[in-house]
């Protein structure tokens, strides 16, 4: 029992070691992150300007606002994917990770969590700017509704996208034409969850009760379980050529 506890603690420490290394590396290369923010803010600006021009100043409907934000998030994910396994492979440091006495699953889970943190951070900036620039017609949300929106409407889909992103990044790291392969592999994986994510967001922002979001939540959770299972089962094969 004690050995099991010790083993769990050691796994957690290794997970934290890889995660903190990635975050530290990212902070040292802050320009990369800035360029992602710039892409997001410019996209929101262009979207909002075009809408305002064509709709002659009408308030942006909720549906268009949600689609705008998630479309930008999907494209941002393509940038972020190249920061996971692809970056480790290209810089040669993947060898250092796989030659260490740690399980492949620890490496994979630390990358998923790293992608989740980056994507959440990008989403925070994106939502703030898009609410300000697009000015959608959102009813006043209570604190509970806001919390439900953040946890179920944003963080749950972000976790799913992070898992899909890590899977695609791991799949394509040994491929030669990565910039072509990354989006080609990603879109079929995230296509089934696009509609539930958008529907979930619209319903929560319209103030619909959580009980009525059952099918979307179940679908997202099932997708997360499926993707995690694929990653865990293939971890050894994916990390070694």
């Amino acid at each position: 029992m004690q050995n099991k506890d010790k083993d769990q603690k050691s796994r957690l420490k290794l997970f934290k070691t890889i995660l903190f290394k990635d975050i530290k590396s990212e902070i040292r290369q802050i320009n990369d992150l800035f360029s992602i923010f710039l892409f997001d803010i410019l996209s929101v600006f262009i979207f909002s300007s075009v809408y305002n021009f064509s709709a002659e100043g009408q308030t942006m409907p909720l549906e268009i606002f949600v689609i705008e934000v998630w479309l930008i998030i999907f494209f941002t994910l393509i940038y972020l994917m190249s920061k996971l396994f692809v970056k480790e492979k290209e810089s040669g440091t993947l060898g250092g990770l796989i030659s260490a006495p740690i399980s492949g699953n620890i490496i994979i889970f630390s990358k998923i969590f790293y992608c989740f943190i980056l994507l959440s951070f990008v989403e925070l900036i994106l939502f703030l700017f898009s609410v300000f620039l697009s000015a959608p017609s959102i009813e006043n949300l209570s604190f509970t509704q806001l919390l439900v929106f953040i946890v179920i409407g944003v963080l749950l889909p972000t976790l799913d996208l992070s898992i899909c992103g890590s899977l695609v990044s791991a799949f394509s790291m040994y491929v030669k034409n990565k910039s072509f392969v990354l989006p080609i592999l990603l879109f079929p994986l995230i296509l089934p969850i696009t509609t539930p994510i958008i529907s979930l967001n619209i319903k929560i922002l319209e103030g619909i009760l959580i009980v009525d979001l059952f099918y979307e939540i179940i679908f997202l959770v099932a997708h997360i379980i499926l993707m995690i299972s694929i990653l865990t089962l293939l971890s050894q094969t994916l990390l070694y050529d």
Partner: protein
Amino acid sequence: MIESKKELINCVNVSKQYGYFFALKNISFKTKENTIIGLAGANGAGKTTLIKILCGLITPTLGKIMIKGMDYENHSNILKKKIGISTDESFLYEELTIFENLKFYDNLHQNFDKNSIKRKIDQFAKKFNLTDWINEPVENLSHGMKQKVELIRVFMHQPSILFLDEPFSGLDFNTTKLLIDSLNELRDKENISIILTTHKTEILAQICDEIIVLKRGKINKSLTKEEYKEIQIESYF
């Protein structure tokens, strides 16, 4: 009484195929513990592929590798704790400092004691003349200095088998001498086994107990230290 050395590596019919190209074909050899084995050969002979297979970084298409009676399929973590690897690719993170890189890799070998890590890094930095550079990002270092950091990374977790791919490339005369002395010391005093590749044939004679010459993915010749001194090794490349 002479103590016979135990078997270290048993490589049986190992082949590695990339598409239609065979990087290695039916490689079989055995080595003993506590020896320095040199892999020699011309460019493209398969030295790096063989060393990467031996240290578990890539899997062979065919054949089996046993290290101390264990294979990577069933005893991956036990073997990885015992081995230290330096390949043609640098495992260092360019944007992190020397200290952060070395601490990271020692953490991966499950040493989380900050004091012991700092003490070890200080000792190695002093030995390899890197004390003044310890908080410098790796991207600011010269090729030779990066090579020194790579070697410290390999030595840090005190492995019992070292796999070194071209460890002498980019090193100045003094560091080359220091590395040769260190490798000899590791074998003689700490019973560490070393498998290395190098283009510098004069170094092979100085440190290797056995030399395996590869040619187009096959073993062309196996030589002992004594045999090696009497021949022109380039004729087997």
